[in-house]
């Protein structure tokens, strides 16, 4: 009987958490967004999601074979990366492009750094940036949800020359670009994007697969916070800083800048705040660091949206803040409960 006795350092019991359970929680949190994507964009959305997930998993498996490392698929992190990438793709993108992006996410975004835990940048955002750089047209061609096709002509009829996209953020950008235009007939007031707020909440607007419905993302986010899979610091900092900057713009010129609430509900803001910026591997460790990181993501996103050329800036904001995460961690050192010795 004694040969069964083992020794190890304390503690000798552990919580039932595991990396896998954390990842499965994130997957569960994304289910509403996947369901809404399937509802609005029909089977093609599910095809895209499935191909992204499968190619992410396959890429990780191949990379492990090449690196002669044990199989790491059991932690489900590849599934999460594939899922988040798929949800941030435009609905009409060809499957081959999605597969390329997903494989790039895993291979270059994660595995070259040494696998889960060692990557500097959010893998899904690395993949999305790669796709934007390579296939710019595909990444900015938006179709509107299948069940509101009838509304589409009305929107495009308003500005048939200039507007080829129908996302709320595109309207927002148009409002900004045309604010000083002389030909008043071409002016796009910010109220056009603002009028879509209810649709943004439910998802009846053009946009990326999983980003259109604020409602679905919020359900998932609340689930993660209740399960304590993510801490509320980063989401609150991202949304809070974005709201603040949006409010300042709105007060300066409410014709040119859209309602800050519309900013929060449009584009990738919510999926970023709840699922992408909260990726623990690429975010700071300490509470203070998380706030700085979140404020940076929200602030850069809004600067790009309000002042930049692109209608959306979430992707670049996340990658930029990922790059400074080690620095943030270094500057936000914790003070022991009893104070710093000899200080």
């Amino acid at each position, binding site marked *: 009987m004694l040969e069964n006795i083992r020794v190890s350092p304390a503690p*000798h*019991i552990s919580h039932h958490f595991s990396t896998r359970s954390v990842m499965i929680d994130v997957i569960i949190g994304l289910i509403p967004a996947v369901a809404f994507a399937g509802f609005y964009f029909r089977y093609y959305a599910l095809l895209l999601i499935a191909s992204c997930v499968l190619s992410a998993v396959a890429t990780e498996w191949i990379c492990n074979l090449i690196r002669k490392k044990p199989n790491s698929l059991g932690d489900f992190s590849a599934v999460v990366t594939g899922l988040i990438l798929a949800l941030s793709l435009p609905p009409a993108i060809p499957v081959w492009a999605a597969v390329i992006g997903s494989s790039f996410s895993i291979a270059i975004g994660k595995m070259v750094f040494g696998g889960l835990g060692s990557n500097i940048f959010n893998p899904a955002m690395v993949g999305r940036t790669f796709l934007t750089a390579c296939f710019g047209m595909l990444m900015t061609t938006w179709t509107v949800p299948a069940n509101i096709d009838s509304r589409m002509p009305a929107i495009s009829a308003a500005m048939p020359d200039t507007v080829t996209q129908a996302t709320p953020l595109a309207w927002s950008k148009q409002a900004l670009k045309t604010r000083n235009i002389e030909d008043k007939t071409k002016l796009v007031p910010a109220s056009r994007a603002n009028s879509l707020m209810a649709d943004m909440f439910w998802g009846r607007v053009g946009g990326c697969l999983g980003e259109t419905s604020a409602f679905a993302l919020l359900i998932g986010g609340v689930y993660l916070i209740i399960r304590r899979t993510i801490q509320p610091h980063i989401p609150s900092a991202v949304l809070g800083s974005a709201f603040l900057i949006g409010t300042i713009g709105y007060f300066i010129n409410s014709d040119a800048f859209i309602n800050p609430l519309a900013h929060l509900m449009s584009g990738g803001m919510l999926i970023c705040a709840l699922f992408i910026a909260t990726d623990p591997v690429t975010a700071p460790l300490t509470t203070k660091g998380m706030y700085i990181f979140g404020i940076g993501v929200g602030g850069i996103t809004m600067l790009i949206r309000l002042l930049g050329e692109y209608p959306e800036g979430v992707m670049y904001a996340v990658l930029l803040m990922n790059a400074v995460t080690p620095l943030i961690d270094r500057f936000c050192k914790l003070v*022991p409960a009893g104070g710093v010795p000899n200080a």
Partner: protein
Amino acid sequence: MIAAAKTRRTFPGGVHPPGRKGPSENSAIQLVPVPKQLAILLNQHIGAVCRSLVAKKDVVKASQKIGEADAFVSAPVHSPLNGTVKEISLQPHPVLGRAMGIIIEVEADNVAAKQPVAAKFGTEFDENKFSDEQILQAVREAGIVGMGGAGFPTRVKLEPNKANPIKTIILNGCECEPFITCDYRVMLEWTEQVIAGIKLVRKVLKPERCVIGIEDNKPKAIEAMKRVVGESDGIEVVSLKTKYPQGGERQLIKSIIDRDVPTPGIPPMISVLVLNVATAAAIAEAVVFNEPLTHRVVTVTGPGVERPGNFYAPIGMAVGELIDACGGLKSDAVKVILGGPMMGISIADLSCPITKTSGAITVLNAKEIGGAKHEMRETACIRCGRCIETCPMNLNPTKIAHAVKHGLLDVAEDYHQSACIECGCCSYVCPANIELTGYIRTGKMTVARKKQDST
């Protein structure tokens, strides 16, 4: 104000492991069969190691002093029972691996087990019958050390300090570790003796406040204490939130008087003294009956033993014999821990004797340990920050542990590894199952050894 009164007193951080007090909490303190052999270690405390006062084949009496050191920071050891010295040699030691110990052969059939003295204490206790010198002398001679686990000689803690007098005495009845119930039974059954002990300490140190802190998952113990503490005694009984490590010295002070002990410091620096309830009981026994610390209450529990219970056992008894007294190991037992599952030391040699600081023997099976922990499967850190969230000392365990892992001791020091209290919260919550506490302890030990080498 009402809201403030309702919030339960506690400290930041910490974890909520399952309590698991069930198997042994209702088992009254019982005597163990007299063992045939005892191994009295000469190094059961912090401070100078005792030298043996006896030689091979000497006949020793119960309570006879058999080991002593001249240093102030030390505590003598005594023979728990009548017997003969068999040998003085290296013995298995739970912390040090091997240490010198005195083996005493006991004629088990002719020697009666020692009875606890608790029944002789009444609710009326007059500490003024004893002078300060008498109390201090008795505590020193009885070899009393902190029985909660640290093993710091109590006499040293009781030394009055004129420059920085003790203002608060806290009696630690938290027992926050899962499974362990020895302090709980002491509080329930030896209530009067414990209160007598704290009154004696109070007489010496004359503090402004005297507080007994008990976790709120032990309502019976709180009730018992409140019943014995008289209105005029001026001793407060405080209920604390049930959270691990509530019984950690620094956490207990934070919960009760909301102050932090300085990082490289000890509670007396902020005028606080913390004593374990079992230590208080031992003080009372030593002062009133002149009995040295030779026996203590040990909980033998866990899913790996047949009949868990609380035992009044002689110090020096082998762990294996205590387990046998509970019906022996079950076939699925995989880990024998001296102490509780969070901070206890796992041992492989069941002939290892219990010491003054051994409050429990916990035997776990693979199910209780949990799959990944049992298989020692460690995956990459995903930087989730749970270790930071739960660290009661507000440290960065993952940073320190990875620095130690890669031999960067200066980085580990820079992140204040020496402030770690080794409570195990970080390892407990880690989803990647990294032995953070183990790494940090390794780092601390390596640094300590380097300092020793350089001097």
